[in-house]
Each structure stands twice: as structure tokens, then as C-alpha cells.
């Protein structure tokens, strides 16, 4: 060690210079609940199970999202629609239980890709932190969007104009 290194003092000063220098830099963090960052329109956050224009659930519990899911986060139990429930479910089969384990989910969006009924979408909402692990298993009460048309979740930005144009074809009317 040289004399300069042995007295330590210049090294301490150099360290302090770096530390105090950071005080005057622009902060890289934001005060989260009050300030939020801007999200991309196609950010993949919490899922939503969409209703159709008449407020009926789109999901028919076909299981394609669950088989596409690389994390095996999705489980469902199907049930048959009874007479008189036509205003609730669009097709004769529906998901009686639909659960996504948000701790398992990697938010890859494969479920959205796999869905033949345009029922599941990822949204810009975030999954909230919890104290208990079992609270992260989201059921239909947290996933299905509200019945009230004003409170529906808009996913139109996730679909490119080409996709929206394609869906206008009457052969694909089951997905409108």
C-alpha cells in the first residue's frame, strides 16, 4: 500500500463525493400510489373476463387458456346453462368456477391468444399485494367485469385495427 492509500482519507472523501452527488440527481423512483407511471396500452397486467354487448359472460369454459398457460395458473369447472339463464351466459356451457393463481401467473398473455371467444384479456390494472397467499387465487368475483355498461373495461386498444376489421365479417360474428 502506498502512503496515500494508508491514510484512507482521500478514499473516504471520494466516496462521500459520490454519495452526496446522488442527492442532486433526478430520482428514478416515483411515489407510487400518488404518482403512477404511464403504462403501454398493451401492458399485460391483471386479467379480465369480458361480457358481450348484452352483458352475458363470453367464457364457455373451453379450457384452451388453461392448456396454453405455461405456468398452469388457470383452473376451471364447467357447468351447463339452465333454461332462464340465457341473459347471463352466452352459450350452453359456462365456467361455474374460474380461478387464476396470480402467484403462478407470469403474465405472458398466452391465455389471451388462445381464447377463441374473446373472453379473457389482460389489462393495465395491477395485481394488488396481499398478506395471505390464498388471496392471490382470483375467482370469478374478481375477474369478471362489472355488468354495468359504464364500468366495463375497455380492451379495444389491445386489438389492432386489422383485428377489429377482421371481426366485422359476419362469419366471425360469434366474437363481436
Amino acid at each position, binding site marked *: 500500500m502506498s502512503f496515500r492509500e494508508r491514510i484512507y482519507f482521500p478514499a473516504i472523501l471520494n466516496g462521500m463525493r459520490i454519495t452526496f452527488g446522488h442527492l442532486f440527481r433526478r430520482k428514478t423512483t416515483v411515489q407510487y400510489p400518488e404518482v403512477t407511471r404511464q403504462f403501454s396500452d398493451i401492458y399485460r397486467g391483471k386479467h379480465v373476463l369480458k361480457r358481450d354487448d348484452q352483458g352475458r359472460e363470453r367464457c364457455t369454459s*373451453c*379450457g384452451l387458456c388453461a*392448456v396454453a398457460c405455461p405456468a398452469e395458473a388457470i383452473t376451471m369447472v*364447467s*357447468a*351447463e346453462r339452465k333454461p332462464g339463464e340465457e341473459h347471463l351466459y352466452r*352459450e350452453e*356451457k359456462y365456467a361455474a368456477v374460474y380461478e387464476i393463481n396470480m402467484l403462478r401467473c407470469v403474465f405472458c398473455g398466452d391465455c389471451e391468444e388462445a381464447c*377463441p*371467444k374473446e373472453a379473457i384479456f389482460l389489462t393495465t390494472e395491477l395485481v394488488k399485494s396481499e398478506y395471505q397467499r390464498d388471496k392471490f387465487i382470483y375467482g370469478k368475483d374478481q375477474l369478471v367485469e362489472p355488468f354495468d355498461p359504464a364500468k366495463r373495461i375497455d380492451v379495444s386498444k389491445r386489438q389492432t385495427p386489422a383485428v377489429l376489421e377482421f371481426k366485422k365479417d359476419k362469419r366471425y360474428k360469434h366474437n363481436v
Partner: protein
Amino acid sequence: MLKVTIDNISIEVEEGTTILNAARKIGGKVVPPAMCYYSKLKGSGGKCRTCLVKVAQSCTKDTRPMSKLVASCSTPVQDGMVVQNLTSPEVIEARKGIVEFLLLNHPLDCPVCDQAGECDLQDLSFGYGMEETATDDERREYPMTDIGENIKLHMNRCILCYRCVYAADQLTDKRLHGVLYRGDVSEISTFINQSVTNEFSGNIIDVCPVGALTDKTFRFKSRVWFLNPMNAHRECTRCSGKVAAWMFGNEIFRITGRKDQFGEVEEFICNECRFEKKDINDWVIDGPRHIKRQSVISANHYEETKKQSLIDPIEGKMHEQK
């Protein structure tokens, strides 16, 4: 023995063998798909035209090609016959048309249908199918009916292959259902909603190539790709008792016959085995069934295999892929 060449592969078969069965002896991709022919049912075949092939040379003496595509399930081979299946663009084109015809009235409700994942028509339309249909007409619609206690008939999905009619004729002593009316409006039905109750009647579910006849005890219970098909057997006084049990954990969701590589059941099973024995204690589980790697059912399905790697370490050659 007659020598026949199918897609440049030669094989010797007995006299009276059909082209389809000769192709099945070769196996692999050479085999034409069949929607209505069922080797275990006498008289089946010749209706769906899916198995059309081109005969490039009729026999050794007559080297001219046959003027039209022929249904391979009902055309017997002749000595020196040269058949083209996948090697003929004409056949591929014709088959595309057949798929379009079959889908004219078939609803696209695969997400709801219990047959999805093991449906012959789904495989066929995926393999040959077109994304578009040329017709603007509405599909025919029928109300859903229960035929018998455990069988549901979705007439909308029926492609009129007549397999179930032959099965009921040949397996049961008294057939109670058949095809009513003719042509475009023909439909499978029981006579004045009579129920199908024979103890072998459940086999019409297995022979149905689409989801027109489905098991009511399995209706909407699960999707086939979430289940593990296992070989199982039990002592049964009526049938062989050899079945495929579709399980989720220790729970048996449904029982079917064991289907071979051509989608035909090896042995017909009785209704008691199929519908009533859903407890794991009723069965002796032999082990997982072989599922083709390409099938969606193979997701999370593990089976014992002798093949360690695709390349044989001694021969240095590629194994034949299943």
C-alpha cells in the same frame, strides 16, 4: 397375394383387401383419413368420401389410370395397382372440398363440444381444411335430444356417417334408432323418441367420429386434455372389461373403449362398464395409454417409453417416429 403400391411404397396384400386397409398395413401418413368407414362394423364406408385416392394404374394388365378418384374404403385392390394419396395434388384438392362439404352443416362450437381434442373432423379440418366456406346459407338446426338415459344426441353436429346405425344393428339385438328422411334433411333419430336402452348401446358414442353422440355422464365435466387416459380392466360378465379410463388424479371422469391408432375401438364395451363404474376401486389400473405426441391430450401426459432418444445408439439411424 396382390402387389399394390401406395405413395411409392409397395406391399403385398390378400385378395379382396380394400385400398384403405392396404394403406393401413403400411401405416403412417400413407393412410387416408376415414370418417365413416369402421373396420369393425360390416357394411360401413363409402359415405363420407374423405378417403378418396387417385388410382394411377388400375392393374398390371391395364396401365391406364382410373378416370375418377375412388373411395379407398370400398375399392378392392388389384395386382399391380398404383395408388396416390398424399403424392397427388388432385386428392388433396378433392379432400379440401370434402372437408368443406362436411363443415357445411357442422357447427363450429368446438369450445363447447365434449369431443374437442379427440374429434376426427377437427383433425381433418385442421389438416386439410380451409378457413373459409363458399356458402352463405345458414346451418341446419335441430333441438338437442336425449336418446336413452346416458346418451345425448346433438343432431346439429352429425355428419351422417351411419356408423352408429351399423353399430346398433350389429352389436345389439334390436336397433331402436336410425336415419329418418332423406338427402339434405335426413337426421339420426329414434322412432318416436324411443330410448336406446340396450346394454351395448353406449358404443355408438365411441364410433361417432364427431361430437353428435356424447356421454351424458361426462357432459361438460372436463376437457379431454386435462385427463389422463389409462388402461384399466375389471371382471365383467358381459364384455371383455378392457377399457380406457380417463382420470384426473384418483378420480375417473369417464370410461371409453380402447381406441387404436386409427381411432377405432379395439373391443366394444358394455354400458355397465361405461356408465356405472366410475369409482377407482371398481377397476384395476394397468398404466397410461399411448397418446400421439401431436395430440393435445399429450399435454402433461407421461408414459413409459423404451425409446430413450430419437437416434438409435447402435444403428446410428433415426427411430421411426410414432
